[in-house]
């Protein structure tokens, strides 16, 4: 409920802030479906002076942490006086509310219009200060700063890097109108990258987050484009006779793997990111597609029907050696390598249900993460802890996310449009 209120308040304020109206698109709102049993109870105390600005920071920090499923927000109402500095935190007060950690902070306007933002993360069990930091930012940077603070808290308390400062790309369909959008990982500040009256699909972030490769039907057939997220400049990089689809970036961002049919059948090719120097890398009598690079850049993981049913294989680029990775079931597709290089997430069909699952390369163990029935297009967060995917709800496409252990699920719902094809962007450039 706390989370619901925070989101409601934040979006309500947004509506009255002329600053953000220009950026507004169909906003995704987030609903947490399941929670981790072992969530860390944390109190995020509203920062001192925060009410001076229409958009604060502590609310966004709290929403980020709660959304991860790794944290449970502890009610901060009624704690008087409200602590804003480390020495003002009374551990006993927070222990009585079952909080393990407390975040306090302050915001002070500076003469030049910028704002001095400070926060402290305190462990009230051990009664020690874990983090104490200061930022000087403009009010326009509040949201970015809040995500950064959430990342710092997340990493300190879980040991894993946070993904609150990352972005997601996704496709919406409204009537006959398709849009490729980029938004913050919490669904805020959606920006339209490209719009068309023909289908768009398969957005893929370049490793540095500056470009998106995607497939567009605007020429009445699938063609692969690469577009700069910042400038909007774009070019068709694969527009050969037949169909051109399934782009994937090499880890160094210099090359793309694509599926082309120019020589007959759907086969995997490699090209430079500008579309030059096209070479075929795989050969099979049937379908090869959905190729993705492993994080070390040495293998392509891909879907093929060479064995009679669609299954996932990997090919070593240096030797051409191919090995099959999935054996269980008659339909295993859409492989997405995990950032630690040890496994992948994919889509499996179980009876008539399409579900998201993970596979550990070493043990060959499959873990089913979602129940379906129509789950597809998974994309793994850069810290490997969350998977965003396309699902169904209320008769239309929605986005959903599940933790890599399958315990925490959330739904991201946009009003009045079908949402599909999510792609989780990389960590921001430092």
């Amino acid at each position, binding site marked *: 409920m706390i989370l619901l209120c925070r989101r*409601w308040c934040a979006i309500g304020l947004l509506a009255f802030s002329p600053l953000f109206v220009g950026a507004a698109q169909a*906003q995704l709102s987030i609903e947490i479906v399941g929670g981790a049993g072992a969530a860390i109870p944390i109190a995020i105390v509203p920062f001192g002076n925060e009410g001076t600005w229409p958009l604060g920071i502590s609310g966004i920090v709290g929403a980020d942490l709660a959304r991860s499923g790794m944290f449970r927000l502890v009610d901060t109402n009624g704690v008087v006086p409200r602590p804003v500095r480390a020495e003002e935190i009374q551990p006993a007060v927070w222990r009585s509310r079952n909080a393990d950690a407390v975040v306090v902070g302050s915001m002070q306007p500076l003469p030049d219009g910028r704002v001095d933002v400070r926060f402290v993360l305190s462990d009230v069990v051990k009664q020690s200060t874990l983090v104490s930091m200061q930022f000087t930012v403009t009010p326009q940077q509040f949201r970015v700063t809040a995500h950064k603070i959430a990342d710092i808290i997340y990493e300190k308390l879980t040991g894993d890097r946070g993904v609150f400062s990352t972005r997601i790309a996704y496709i919406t369909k409204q009537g006959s109108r398709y849009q490729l959008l980029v938004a913050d990982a919490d669904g805020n500040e959606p920006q339209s990258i490209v719009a*068309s009256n023909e289908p768009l699909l398969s957005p893929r972030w370049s490793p540095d987050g500056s470009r998106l490769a995607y497939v567009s039907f605007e020429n009445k*057939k699938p063609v692969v484009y690469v577009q700069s997220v910042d400038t909007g400049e774009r070019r068709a990089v694969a527009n050969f006779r037949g*169909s051109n689809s399934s782009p994937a970036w090499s880890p160094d961002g210099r090359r793309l793997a694509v*599926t082309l049919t120019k020589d007959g059948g759907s086969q995997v090719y490699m090209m430079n990111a500008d579309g030059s120097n096209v070479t075929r890398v795989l050969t099979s009598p049937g379908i090869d597609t959905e190729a993705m690079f492993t994080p070390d850049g040495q293998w392509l993981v891909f879907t093929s029907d060479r064995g009679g049913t669609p299954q996932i294989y990997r090919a070593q680029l240096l030797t051409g050696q191919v090995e099959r990775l999935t054996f269980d079931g008659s339909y295993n597709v*859409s492989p997405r390598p995990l950032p630690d290089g040890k496994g992948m997430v994919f889509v499996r*069909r179980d009876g008539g249900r399409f579900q998201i699952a993970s596979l550990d390369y070493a043990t060959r163990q499959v873990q089913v993460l979602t129940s379906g029935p129509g789950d597809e297009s998974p994309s793994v967060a850069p810290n490997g802890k969350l998977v965003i995917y396309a699902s169904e709800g209320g008769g239309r496409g929605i986005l959903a996310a599940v933790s890599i252990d399958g315990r925490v699920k959330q739904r991201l719902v946009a009003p009045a449009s079908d949402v599909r094809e999510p792609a989780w962007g990389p960590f921001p450039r430092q």
Partner: protein
Amino acid sequence: MRKYLWIGLIAAALAGCSTTPSTEAPVDDKSAAGTAGAGGAQTGGAAGGGVTGSATGSGASGNPLRDPNNILSKRSVYFDYDSFVVKDEYRPLVEAHARYLQQNRSARATVQGNTDERGSREYNIALGQKRADSVKRMMTLLGATESQIETVSFGKEKPKNPGHDESAYAENRRDDILYAGE
């Protein structure tokens, strides 16, 4: 749940007064502008709609491709689930188009493959391509030349029938044959 409805409403209102960011790339749409947000508006797909455009090929006595009494006006080949085999009932249709291409060497055709909505979008692009390729293979065996026919796939992206039942799926597992200029 109620709160989400409200959030949705506010967000929808915001979306309504939004401006187009400068980074949005223009896309050259052939269809009419101003359809954004039009509820229920459906494009018929490239295969639908009336056949206009100038016809390639012969025939002072009307265009056989547009003559409803001519088998050449039939353009769709339907497939079984998970199948790429051209069923016997569509052989006469494919043979007629192959013969037309053989007799009109300047004619150019596109075979567009489609799938039902089940499964991966990208894998369905490949499945649709395989269906288009199987019609092309039959046509070239029957006398059309390779260069006369381009095969492309729409996967599950442009369903002719937007339904979610077996009859809709059957309608969407389909190849459409189009001629240049149509």
